């Protein structure tokens, strides 16, 4: 690792101030960033740890029944705290990485990093969540801009994530057995006004909504309703773990499994 200073602010205001420094970078749970630093793929001057900021921690509900999750809330805490109110989201959080990773990794860090195989982007997009930053509120539909890219500005920090709660939902993940990332993962959520289907791990553009499946499931929420649908292999990720054709096939399979599990 290159040398850097570690700042530990206890308020969002102090964190934003510390991030003004040239080449400063936020540190959330560090479960992706620390290995990246070890590989010398990043060279920040200062890392600004967000862990000590109590206003970015925890889960609460608003009077419209939506769930607000602080950006620095760990996967393990989300798994515990939304188990009753949003079991589909809790189950997704409980499948990320391994237990030690879930005790440190955070929802804000995962969304900001937008790894094309991460689980949380599928939950945010599939729920129609809103990403609340220090500057604005960003609908998940506008947030993800492709592999490892989001609309977040340099000095913008995710403060919390606001989830509307669907009637039913489920996440079906085909895990890459070594990394536990999604080789392909599909999050399906049924709301009063329609169904959302978000796919992670498959596309070279990162997480995406499968609108054809959404329409079909809006008419008939059953695995059979999407049995005849498929996505093209073009634009899917191809690597040693799976070809684009394989991933395109998995999109259909995991969508059906998610619907069956949700139903």
């Amino acid at each position, binding site marked *: 690792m290159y040398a850097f200073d*570690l700042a530990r602010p206890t308020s969002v205001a102090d964190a934003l101030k510390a991030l003004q420094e040239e080449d400063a970078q936020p540190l959330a749970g*560090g479960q992706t960033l*620390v290995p990246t630093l070890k*590989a010398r793929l990043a060279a920040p001057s*200062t890392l600004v740890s967000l862990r000590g900021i109590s206003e970015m921690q925890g889960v609460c509900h608003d009077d419209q029944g939506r769930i607000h999750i602080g950006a620095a809330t760990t996967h*393990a805490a989300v798994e515990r705290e939304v188990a009753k109110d949003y079991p589909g989201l809790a189950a997704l959080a409980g499948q990320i990485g*391994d237990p030690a990773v879930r005790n440190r990794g955070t929802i804000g860090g995962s969304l900001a990093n937008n790894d094309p195989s991460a689980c949380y982007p599928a939950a945010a997009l599939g729920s129609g969540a809103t990403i609340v930053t220090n500057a604005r509120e960003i609908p998940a539909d506008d947030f993800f801009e492709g592999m490892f890219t989001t609309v977040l500005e340099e000095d913008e920090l995710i403060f919390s994530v606001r989830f509307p709660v669907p009637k039913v939902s489920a996440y079906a993940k085909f895990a890459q057995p070594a990394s*536990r990332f999604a080789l392909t993962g599909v999050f399906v959520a049924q709301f009063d006004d329609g169904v959302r289907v978000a796919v992670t791990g498959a596309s070279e553009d990162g997480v995406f909504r499968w609108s054809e499946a959404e329409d079909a499931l809006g008419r008939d929420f059953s695995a059979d309703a999407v049995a005849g649908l498929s996505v093209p292999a073009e634009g899917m990720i191809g690597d040693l773990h799976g070809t684009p054709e394989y991933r395109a096939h998995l999109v259909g399979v995991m969508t059906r499994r998610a619907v069956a599990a949700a139903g």
Partner: protein
Amino acid sequence: MTKVSMTVNGKPATAEAKGNTLLVDYLREGLGLTGTHVGCDTSQCGACVVHVDGEAVKACSIFALEAEGAEITTIEGMAAPDGTLSAIQQAFQDYHGLQCGFCTPGMVMSAAALLKENPRPSEQEVRDYLEGNLCRCTGYHNIVRAIMAASGQESAVAAE
């Protein structure tokens, strides 16, 4: 370098750390607690698992400064002061849950975290919980047996 203090295995501890000093290096080099192992340095193997404020964490994936003031438990804190092994450690010995032993500190710390939150896990729950702990001697079966035995369920795992 700054002096960083935390409680390690129930005792106050202080050692110097830089911004980029990992918790595992603080423990091994700063405090001489070399029971916590670095197997991969890529955050994948789990040999460095310790408990930070009661939760299993990979000590190679957090910085020492982030743990300032925290309660840390390492493998050195598992046995009683007179050397009597903890139930999990004893079960690893009884059920041959280690071959080379390199992954064992992380396995024991993960197992302890599991049994704290789920005192009588199923065999599948044990295997799921050990997802982040790699054993390259391929000793998983006996590790799982040891953890099942430590939870008072030795008969629950089929013999090989």
